[in-house]
């Protein structure tokens, strides 16, 4: 452990998570020998930080790698290369048994609360497991703790002996959140936590996450495709496309003055419920290319309205365009 400790200077700052040059390739095997023939480059050279108490939104379309980033940061998927510095320790290389200590500090909330809850376990058992595994409290204390947890997420102790199928989607997601909170984590990855919910229920859960965040000073990586929800809940936002980061910016700057052509196109594609303000729309042509064989240079160039010949030659680096706002584009952030 000690040799993995970072220099004192890094520990002093407010960074909880620092991801550097993270790559995650999923091998595709083929032929009779099952050799690796190609890779799906799900995440390609991704770097970002999350400060203590900060909510960072992670947006992108299918194939952008946003879910893989969330899973890899928690070591639910093994990184191919790069570092994942969590509170001063590179957990990307920790042996499994040493990871255990960190598991308690890092939790995940999934999109589909039904698929992530064991249908045969009562809520008492679901939440009790989380406490028992991490040896939190005595068995006698645990029931009180579980009731407190349920109350914190807007349910009551009456639900202790019910099974997951007896709950609505919104209630199940509350249980998923209670389970993540049970071990008092420092960091939560929320992977599309409200996208499976009805509109009227979605607002309830977004408010709950807002409240819990304020109450427990939660640090969160909030992964979602709904740009309005991400704006509502995040302090900063990362935009990914085909395994790479296109832009990182404080929320206000990203939505007000997006720099990257992809961010602009993405924001303009969201249908607006505001019928009084019609906006100019950038309609992208074509589909997201395959992450098995991404375009050379800038991965967005095949759909980019601003692409020039040079875009095929260099992978653009993230460059600062305004305080805290970084964009990877040779046209708009040279």
């Amino acid at each position, binding site marked *: 452990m000690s040799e993995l400790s970072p220099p004192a200077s890094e520990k002093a700052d407010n960074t909880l998570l620092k991801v550097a040059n993270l790559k995650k390739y999923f091998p595709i095997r083929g032929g009779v020998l099952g050799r690796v023939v190609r890779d799906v480059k799900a995440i390609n050279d991704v770097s970002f930080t999350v400060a203590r108490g900060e909510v960072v939104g992670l947006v992108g*379309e*299918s194939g952008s790698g946003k879910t893989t980033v969330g899973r890899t940061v928690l070591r639910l998927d093994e990184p191919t290369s790069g570092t994942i510095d969590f509170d001063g320790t590179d957990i990307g290389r920790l042996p499994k048994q040493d990871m255990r200590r960190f598991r308690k500090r890092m939790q995940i909330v999934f999109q589909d609360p039904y698929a992530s809850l064991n249908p045969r376990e009562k809520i008492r058992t679901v939440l009790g497991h989380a406490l028992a595994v991490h040896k939190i409290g005595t068995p006698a204390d645990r029931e009180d703790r579980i009731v407190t947890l349920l109350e914190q997420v807007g349910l009551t102790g009456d639900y202790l002996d019910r099974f997951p199928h007896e709950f*609505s*989607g*919104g*209630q199940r997601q509350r249980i998923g959140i209670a389970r993540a909170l049970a071990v008092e984590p420092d960091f939560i990855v929320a992977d599309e936590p409200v996208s499976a919910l*009805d*509109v*009227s*229920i*979605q*607002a*309830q859960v*977004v*408010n709950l996450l*807002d409240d819990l965040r304020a109450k427990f000073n939660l640090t969160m990586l909030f992964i979602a*495709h709904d*740009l*309005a*929800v991400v*704006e*509502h809940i995040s302090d900063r936002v990362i935009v990914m496309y085909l395994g790479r980061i296109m832009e990182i910016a404080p*929320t*206000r700057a990203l*939505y*007000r003055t997006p720099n990257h052509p992809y961010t602009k*196109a*993405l*924001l*303009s*594609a*969201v*249908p*607006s*419920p*505001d*019928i*009084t303000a019609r906006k100019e*729309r950038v*309609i*992208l*042509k*074509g*589909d*997201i290319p395959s992450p098995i064989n991404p375009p050379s240079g800038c991965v967005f160039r095949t*759909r980019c309205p601003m692409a020039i010949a040079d875009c095929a030659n260099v992978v653009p680096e993230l460059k600062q365009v305004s305080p805290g706002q970084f964009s990877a584009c040779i046209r708009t952030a040279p």
Partner: protein
Amino acid sequence: MTQMPVAEPPLLEVDDLQTTFIVGEGQQVRAVDGVSFAVKAGETLAIVGESGSGKSVTSLSIMRLLPKRVGRISRGAIRLRGKDMVTLSDKEMRAIRGNDIGMIFQEPMTSLNPVQTIGTQIAEVVMQHERLPKARAHERAVEMLELVGIPEPARRAQQYPHQMSGGMRQRAMIAMALSCEPSVLIADEPTTALDVTIQAQILDLMRTLQAKLGMAIVFITHDLGVVAEMANRVVVMYAGQVVETGTVEEIFTKPLMPYTSGLMQSIPRMGEYEEKTRLQTIPGYVPLLTKLPGGCRFRTRCAFAQDRCAAAEPPLEVLDSGRSVRCVRWQEFDLKTKASA
């Protein structure tokens, strides 16, 4: 928004539709309970609602695609150019489906055949509609793929559905639905599974094709942003019933029913980071059809509910303007949305 001449009869008319489902132990529920609306040529009508509102069962009822022995139309009429389709035989209905009425669903794989090439499938639909030699029908299929913006349509026509991305498959399904130039298109959450940049392409395409072919579109969705962009008129459903109707302007700027305004207020909107306040919510959950509250079905979640709301089920009141609302107290409110502020 184009104003249709008053005299023009509706193309599709749903009149007091009631669809009953059997839910275990012989218990029956009315998934759709007395729903009426009409759509004219060139018009887009959006049906909005959350899960359990009955919006998708309405679309399945129109197409006569209800699960056999479980769901059935128990009352009402569905008229196409004045002719009731509820009483048609399965065979007669098949001739109408994919001919006069096209449909697009959320999941294209449910309506595409996995073991036939896209080109062959579309050509078959074309041949059902029109007597054409096979080669000519195939050419038409390629033209349709081109029309919906699929690059290299001739090559794509040779592919099987699994060889295409979700956005491509959705476009292929639209090409198939449009290949016989239907006068009515039923689109049930057609872009919900798609990424926003692909959704923008598909919505743009639907608008272009509607302008070209003059179709009536019934657009079923839970996404209010999509409704605002696509619809001329809106039907709001809750727990199997219509609770409010109006033009898209009326619904979005001056809703009359507390549920409608609640929905409008609960969606986060882009560009509101500064006014970062709590989202307004509708408390509680959509009631199960087996456990509906007596009286107004929304009253258990409604901030304005009074004793009289429980006394009797409010009728759908039709106003002089042509809008309708199901609420005994609507005249007492001045409901707001963010758009009307």
